[in-house]
């Protein structure tokens, strides 16, 4: 167990089963946020089986060896705890919050779900039916359609990010309890993950509670290493999909990003802020929404993940403004690529990102998210000392270079979902 820096928050580290644990005590709070990230997201899915990671994650909270689904749910609600499980590109994450005195009971329940799920067949049928309904719903949801179409344009067949975490209908229909059990054992139990606790707790006690909860981590076969070839968007790809009876189009314009562990990632994040991350501080949002009034929302995001996560701009636009909003966004991108932005645009982006690190301290969730990223990608014990400096150190030349390398204005994937576009 090591003691890391104490500013801006104390952080203590330890282990619990196959989890690396980090605890950030925040004196004065009544609750604890607990983020448990398992390295069992889309990246870990077997080729051709998109959706297996999410289905497995869903089944964790549907009954364990000692409690059926109803008993587990009642035990969670007895604590008044909030909990959910989501699957993303890289991880499955159990996000929870409980009152501080209930941490032992809460982690006990989560450990029971993660380590000893029963995978009851009847519960799988419910999860299957709910997931098929969600896929059906997404098929007429402009955001869902745009997301599906964009992924299919940007990633080649077989790539783990080509499908949404909800998966493919055929996989959802055909999945078996045995397949989910195998995924759980092979990916969740063998890879382990990270547990972050932030809130009104004392560090040593929280580490002891975590270690006790996840003691007796079962043995498991070694996880498979998935080889993912590098993907490329070689030319402009565009697809328009009509969704009936809608009034607004959802647009995703995007590229393939870079892994969080890439030394250039912080420069990429700063580039993202200069270009489009914020509706007020970034060039795209400022022009598309604030100056031209073309969209209610326009923003860009870069994924902190393994491999080449999406680096995308999302817009909600009236059909008659779609082409202009896209053209304007690309014009702003060309300004970034050409280095035509003001020095103050970069300074503003850096100020905002550094300032946000301080504002995030207001909530246990904000601190937990910061810690999770650092722990998950093993960014170093001194990450919190260095991160603000890394942001400040990014130069205009680096922003231009990142935009030129990763955001070519003539090679991107463009998905538009909504009413028929106006002529």
């Amino acid at each position: 167990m090591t003691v890391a820096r104490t500013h801006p928050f104390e952080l203590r580290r330890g282990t619990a089963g196959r989890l690396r644990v980090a605890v950030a005590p925040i004196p004065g709070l009544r609750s604890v946020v607990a983020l448990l990230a398992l390295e069992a997201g889309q990246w870990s899915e077997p080729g051709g089986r998109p959706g297996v990671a999410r289905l497995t994650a869903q089944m964790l909270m549907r009954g364990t060896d000692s409690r059926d689904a109803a008993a587990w749910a009642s035990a969670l609600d007895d604590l008044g705890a909030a909990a959910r499980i989501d699957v993303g590109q890289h991880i499955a994450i159990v996000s929870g919050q409980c009152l501080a005195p209930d941490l032992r009971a809460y982690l006990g329940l989560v450990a029971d779900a993660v380590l000893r799920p029963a995978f009851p067949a009847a519960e799988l049928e419910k999860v299957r039916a709910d997931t098929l309904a969600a896929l059906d719903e997404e098929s007429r949801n402009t955001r869902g359609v745009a997301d599906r179409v964009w992924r299919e344009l940007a990633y080649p067949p077989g790539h783990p990010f080509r499908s949404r975490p909800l998966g493919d209908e055929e996989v959802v229909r055909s999945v078996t309890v045995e397949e989910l059990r195998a995924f759980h054992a092979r990916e969740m139990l063998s890879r382990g993950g990270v547990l972050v606790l932030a809130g009104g707790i004392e560090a040593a006690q929280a580490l002891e509670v975590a270690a006790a909860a996840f003691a007796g981590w079962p043995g498991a076969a070694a996880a498979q290493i998935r080889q993912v070839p590098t993907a490329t968007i070689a030319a402009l790809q565009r697809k328009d999909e009509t969704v009936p009876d809608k009034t607004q189009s959802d647009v995703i314009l995007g590229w393939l990003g870079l892994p969080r562990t890439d030394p250039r990632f912080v420069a990429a994040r700063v580039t993202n802020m200069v270009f489009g991350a914020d509706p007020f501080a970034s060039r795209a949002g400022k022009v598309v929404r604030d100056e031209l009034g073309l969209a209610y929302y326009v923003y860009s995001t870069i994924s902190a993940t393994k491999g080449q996560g999406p680096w995308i701009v999302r817009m909600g636009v009236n059909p008659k403004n779609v082409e202009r909003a896209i053209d304007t966004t690309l014009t702003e991108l060309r300004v970034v690529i050409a280095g035509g932005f003001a020095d103050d645009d970069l300074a503003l982006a850096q100020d905002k990102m550094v300032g946000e690190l301080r504002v995030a301290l207001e909530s246990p969730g904000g601190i937990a998210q910061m810690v999770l990223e650092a722990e998950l990608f093993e960014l170093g014990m001194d990450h919190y000392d260095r991160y603000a400096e890394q942001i400040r150190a990014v130069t205009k030349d680096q922003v231009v270079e990142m935009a030129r390398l990763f955001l070519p204005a003539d090679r991107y994937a463009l998905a538009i979902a909504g009413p028929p576009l106006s002529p």
Partner: protein
Amino acid sequence: MTTQTVSPRLADAPATRRLANGLVVYAVEARHAPVANAAVWYHVGGRNEVPGTTGMSHFLEHMLFKGTPLHPKGDLDRLLARYGAMWNAFTSEDVTCYFETVPVERYPVALELEADRMRNALISLEEVEAERTVIVSEREGYENDPSFLLGEELQAVAFSRHPYGQGVIGSKEDVQLMTRDGLYAHYRRFYSPSNAYLVVVGDDDAGAILERAAATFGSLEPGEGALPVRSPEPPQHGEKRVVVRRAGGAVPILQIAFKSVRATDPLIPGLQALAIALAGASGGAQEAASGRSSRLYRALVTTGLATEVEVSAGLNKDPFLFVIEATLHPEGDHAKTEARILEELEGIAATPLAADEFARVRKQLLAANAFGSDTITGQALRLGQLLATGAASSIAEWYARLAAVTAEDVRSAAAATFDERARTVGWFVPLA
């Protein structure tokens, strides 16, 4: 460690000062992070609008980001962005709120910006035209959501006289016809110290916060004060029904709304607990694991009638709605689901919750309250909402009211609310 519930800190009670111009300031110390939230609340929202001006309060909210003579458009954005601020605004049926969460040493700047735009917003013709398309785009985004489409119809049908029936964002037609002069008149009428209050929560001495606020806002003219809204909703004497049939959704949706009470009513704490007993504290979406022990989750989702169920018991100035929403499976049966919900409502109105079930509900109620106020922004906005509607004068008082709820309170709140004559039922039926 034990499983007892932790009481809120005494510091939750705000220090208060009423300035000579009518602005009331509330200050709460929150010392766990070097951060502060400042929020100005105006007593104006959808409730203050009439047909032809629906959506005006929300439109105006957008225009408050378009500059003053002292801070031209863009100044505010860049200044707050440099601080890493989390800042925004929202409009509800009852109020409009502007807030900034900033590093604590910057909150005086947030106060200055809010004081400036309270009386000096430009609201230029050019900016009104540019923003009109943004607001139409916001509305069109909502229109893509079947739940919004049904909810808007349901609310319109439920209220026959009260402006709550108009919602908040307004009709597209009204937004398209709204004039700069109309918006400016709305601004001058409602945006003044005498029609507003300020909440500051953060890492500073409460007395210092009050002094700083008084120095910043004290010189503003009080304004004329807004006339009270007088559009009482007449009693409803029978069930109303609405059906929306559109292709824009794949799954059927069912909403059931009951006329409820205002936030100051003694039934309110019981209604908050009732909502949790029915659907949990955080909704029943697929990824959520909490709330699955609730009555409607078990009756609808566990049995396969629906994929999720949510219940909202709003806190409003005037009597509003208690709403139950179920999202059905694609081949779901509205009538069967509706009957099942009504059966559950009848049961909970007839018999008090058993001791173990009530303990579970109470724990969720109090824990959710603690979670929300363990962030500075959450604490500030929660306090502001309680003050807006008169539900409580502090988070501590609100907590005490929730903690005092009994199983019989939950039953009697259900019995008082679930009246067929006060019910409006909405079905969203997807077309192929």
